[in-house]
């Protein structure tokens, strides 16, 4: 066992936004692990990694790192070969510079090939060094490279940026401070406790002390522990108020990252009922309190109690002093919301529909009113194919669906998330049918409860996707600013959940027709949609090769693809399917050049007078025998039955391949056998392209 030490890095900062913390520490941990791996410790090089944070610190502990790194040689890549050597085969200036930069001479250079092409490489032999020196070299650049959604400058150095200013650096390897170079700061063994409860510096002698010493200074640095405490305190407080906490996962995550030492404060909405807030819709109340005060609400028998719970960051809080202000501010926000709602109801959504004509929806595509009209037409046409679809309900819902975007309520920053819900509330209060309100309220969700809601939710997203593609802003790589992928996934989920007989190509054609442009983008949009369907299906735990096999023949109707895959899963005959696949791969290979899989209608019939082996006859008879049942099973979408029928002729195919030689000299016989195989293949293709199922070994 090598001699080891534990490593601690704490980057003390001014308050970093809640959503930045976890990704930053995770990145730091991953990168440091990579670097440690690269300097090559044998076997299990180091112990546990603890990733921790509060708004004021990013903290990483790595246990048991050996004191010395290993000596090891490795290749490092330089410029492309064509730049590294001249016409005479001599190293160029670029190659020499590369060598110089890595402190090796030309003899260490060589040309090697990797997946990207030919490059010059330098062989570098690392020296065994003190891990301390390695850490001192590595840590500063890691700190600078931590990715953040937004970065800022605060020093005179233009190049130094971070999420917020760095206040201190505490870095220890064992009991030794890692004194790395950093602009205007010197790493030390000092950290700081809670800003108000324990502002003095704390000395950390060993990394292991860090968690407890911070706790003594009113900082719970481990987010999991903070979270546990928050949930426990919230539940206790809710119980004390005679109700139970309304869970809000995102909010719990957020407040965990907003405090160093949580303390829950129960507040009252005094005068709640007097002021008419009892009429305030639950969603509005909850959103106002969550967005503005990061506060939780309490319910009893499904009704909100006139209280709210704030998670403060004040260990020495005096509740009597703090409570009135939280309450006043909350009430003032609710008053605002109440004012907006009253104004909006006075005006009514119908009037706002007219105003949609003045609002641009997507630049170069149309106004919001255009969208409303297209939404209406598209949905009516998609819904017309369904049995349970109330056209009047849909038309009314679509007509009013977008008007809430222009209401005072939704235009307020903290209530934008109530789009749809606000529309539902307003239509409900102005006496529209409940079905209409329901559809409006569910248009942005992915779990609508009626077909009208489902069609509205799908049509809206189809229009968004089409318009965004048309104006040239499709998702690229990790960038998907309009969340089109999520929208497409929602379309698939709704279609499958609601068992909707929707056809992607028809729906897309209708969408583009309504918008009146974008024909040239049709291919790209269609590919995007099927790609999302493929991902959606694999996310349902269907094996990707089954998904490939089904989508190859039935990719246009998501629900139908889903049914086919469910039959595969239900039958659960993986081995049998693989055997079928082996046979179908042979068929596919042998018929590839002569018999098109795309246009099976043109596959010629074999001539049974030309059969001269039993196996041929038997296969043809079996295929003919199952065909009527197969077709009626397909009509009834009974894919389980269809699969069973297909599986039943598998032995005949295997036997055929065992006994019959297809590629005989005599052309007539050969062609006839190919016709036979192609015909059998066509039966399978009615369900899936089995040749795409992966056969291992």
């Amino acid at each position, binding site marked *: 066992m090598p001699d080891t030490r534990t490593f601690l890095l704490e980057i003390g900062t001014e308050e970093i936004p*809640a959503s930045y913390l976890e990704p930053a520490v995770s990145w730091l941990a991953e990168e440091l692990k990579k670097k440690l791996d690269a300097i090559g410790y044998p076997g299990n090089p180091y112990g546990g990694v603890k990733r921790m944070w509060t708004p004021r610190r990013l903290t990483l502990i790595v246990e048991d790192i050996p004191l010395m790194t290993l000596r090891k040689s490795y290749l490092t890549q330089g410029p492309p070969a064509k730049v590294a050597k001249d016409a005479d085969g001599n190293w160029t200036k670029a190659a020499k510079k590369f060598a110089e930069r890595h402190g090796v001479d030309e003899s260490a250079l060589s040309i090697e090939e990797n997946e990207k092409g030919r490059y010059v490489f330098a062989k570098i032999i690392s020296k065994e060094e003190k891990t301390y020196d390695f850490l001192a070299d590595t840590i500063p650049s890691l700190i600078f490279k931590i990715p953040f959604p937004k970065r*800022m400058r605060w020093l005179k150095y233009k190049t130094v940026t971070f999420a917020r200013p760095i206040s201190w650096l505490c870095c220890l390897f064992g009991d030794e401070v890692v004194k790395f170079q950093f602009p205007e700061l010197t790493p030390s063994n000092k950290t700081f406790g809670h800003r108000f409860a324990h502002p003095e510096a704390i000395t950390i002698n060993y990394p292991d002390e860090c968690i407890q010493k911070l706790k003594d200074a009113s900082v719970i640095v481990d987010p999991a522990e903070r979270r546990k405490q928050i949930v426990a305190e919230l539940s206790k407080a809710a119980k004390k108020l005679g109700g139970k906490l309304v869970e809000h996962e995102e909010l719990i995550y957020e407040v965990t990252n*907003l405090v160093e030492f949580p303390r829950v404060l129960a507040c009252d909405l005094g005068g709640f009922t007097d002021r008419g807030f009892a009429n305030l819709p639950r969603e509005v109340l909850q959103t106002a309190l969550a967005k503005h005060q990061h506060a939780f609400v309490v319910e009893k028998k499904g009704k909100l109690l006139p209280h709210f719970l704030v998670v403060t960051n004040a260990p020495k809080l005096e509740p009597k002093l*703090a409570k009135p202000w939280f309450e*006043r501010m909350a009430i003032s926000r609710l008053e605002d919301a109440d004012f907006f709602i009253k104004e909006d109801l006075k005006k009514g959504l119908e009037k706002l529909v007219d105003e949609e004509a003045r*609002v*641009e929806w997507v630049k170069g595509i149309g106004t919001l009113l255009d969208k409303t009209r297209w939404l209406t037409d598209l949905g009516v046409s998609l819904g017309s194919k369904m049995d349970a679809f109330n056209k009047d309900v849909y038309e009314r819902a679509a007509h009013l669906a977008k008007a809430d975007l222009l209401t005072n309520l939704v235009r307020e920053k903290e209530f934008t998330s109530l789009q749809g819900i606000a529309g539902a509330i307003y239509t409900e209060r102005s006496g529209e049918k409940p079905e209409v309100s329901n559809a409006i309220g569910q248009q942005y969700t992915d779990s609508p409860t009626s077909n009208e809601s489902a069609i509205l939710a799908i049509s809206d997203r189809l229009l968004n996707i089409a318009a965004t593609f048309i104006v040239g802003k499709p998702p690229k790589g990790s960038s998907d600013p309009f969340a089109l992928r999520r929208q497409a996934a929602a379309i698939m989920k709704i279609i499958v959940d609601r068992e909707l007989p929707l056809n992607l190509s028809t729906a897309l054609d209708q969408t583009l027709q309504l918008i009146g442009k974008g024909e040239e983008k049709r291919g790209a949009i269609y590919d995007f949609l099927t790609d999302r369907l493929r991902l959606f299906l694999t996310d349902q735990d269907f094996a990707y090769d089954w998904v490939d096999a089904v989508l190859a023949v039935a990719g246009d109707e998501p629900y139908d693809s889903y049914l086919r895959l469910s039959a595969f899963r239900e039958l659960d005959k993986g081995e049998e399917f693989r055997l079928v696949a082996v046979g179908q791969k042979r068929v596919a290979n042998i018929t590839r050049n002569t018999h098109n899989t795309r246009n099976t209608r043109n596959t010629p019939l074999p001539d049974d007078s030309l059969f001269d082996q039993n196996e041929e006859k038997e296969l043809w008879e079996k295929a003919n025998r199952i065909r009527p049942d197969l077709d009626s099973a397909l009509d009834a979408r009974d894919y389980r039955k269809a699969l069973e029928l297909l599986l039943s002729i598998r032995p005949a195919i295997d036997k055929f391949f065992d006994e019959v030689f297809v590629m005989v000299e005599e052309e007539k016989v050969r062609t006839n056998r190919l016709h036979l195989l192609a015909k059998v293949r066509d039966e399978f293709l009615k369900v899936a392209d089995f040749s795409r199922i992966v056969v291992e070994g």
Partner: protein
Amino acid sequence: MSKPLSFQEIILRLQDYWIDKGCVLMQPYSSEVGAGTFNPASFLKVLDDKPWRCVYVEPAKRPRDARYAENPLRVYQHWQMQVILKPAPEDSQELYLGSLRALGIPLERHDLRFTEDDWESPTLGAWGLGWQVELDGIEITQFTYFQQVGGLDLPMVPLELTYGIGRIAMFLQRVDSFFSIKWGDMGGETLTWGDVFLQNEKDFSAYSFEEADTDYLRRSFDHYEAECTRLVKKGLLMPAYDAVVKCSHFFNLLDARGAISVTERTATILRVRKLAMAVAKLYVEGPDTDSDPEGEVKDA
């Protein structure tokens, strides 16, 4: 318990505190602005690489926030105390907290947070990162490390503190509304915010929402926009900047009157930003002496 600070005492305490920390006392700007940042002591002084520290009170006039004096926390005109510290000091947060302690607030007994809030002024082409400071859930200060102003990267990062002194006064005096804030004593009589400003609020609300002449405002906007561009070419910095500020206020009024559609809104903001950027460039680079757009500068 000691007598709570009056509004004027709060102003004096904060001014004293910041003067003591090396700030010069400036005065409000002479034209309507929506925020203290529009005062040239902020907007222009942050653009160069010379240190600058100042403190001043600014009346912020926001037509859209007018509420006919019916909302306790929303008003046409509220008061900001603006502090610029350039370069931003190392102990910015502690310095700031010191100013709250100077007002006698026992911070450890309250819940004080620095809550993410990335400030941005699209009309000024300005943005920065920082926080809203919340005291028991009340936003009392905008705390921003400016990164860009007038579309220019700042060579020396300044700290901007914008105190909502009305809210701080409510907090200290334990009153529910701006209008109940005790402003000060006048010959032994207590004067409140409402005594001085309640009627103004009603009048300006009516003006902002009902009476402002939108045709005139549009024409004025166009006029000052052209004027600004012309003055920038002449290198007349402050008159050009005055025109930017006027355009911004006309835009705010038109917006409150509902005379600007959503699409037009973005476009109009961009027009103001373009002017602000031109003036910022003029301040940093000086007049463009090479070009001779109107053929008026002749060689001797």
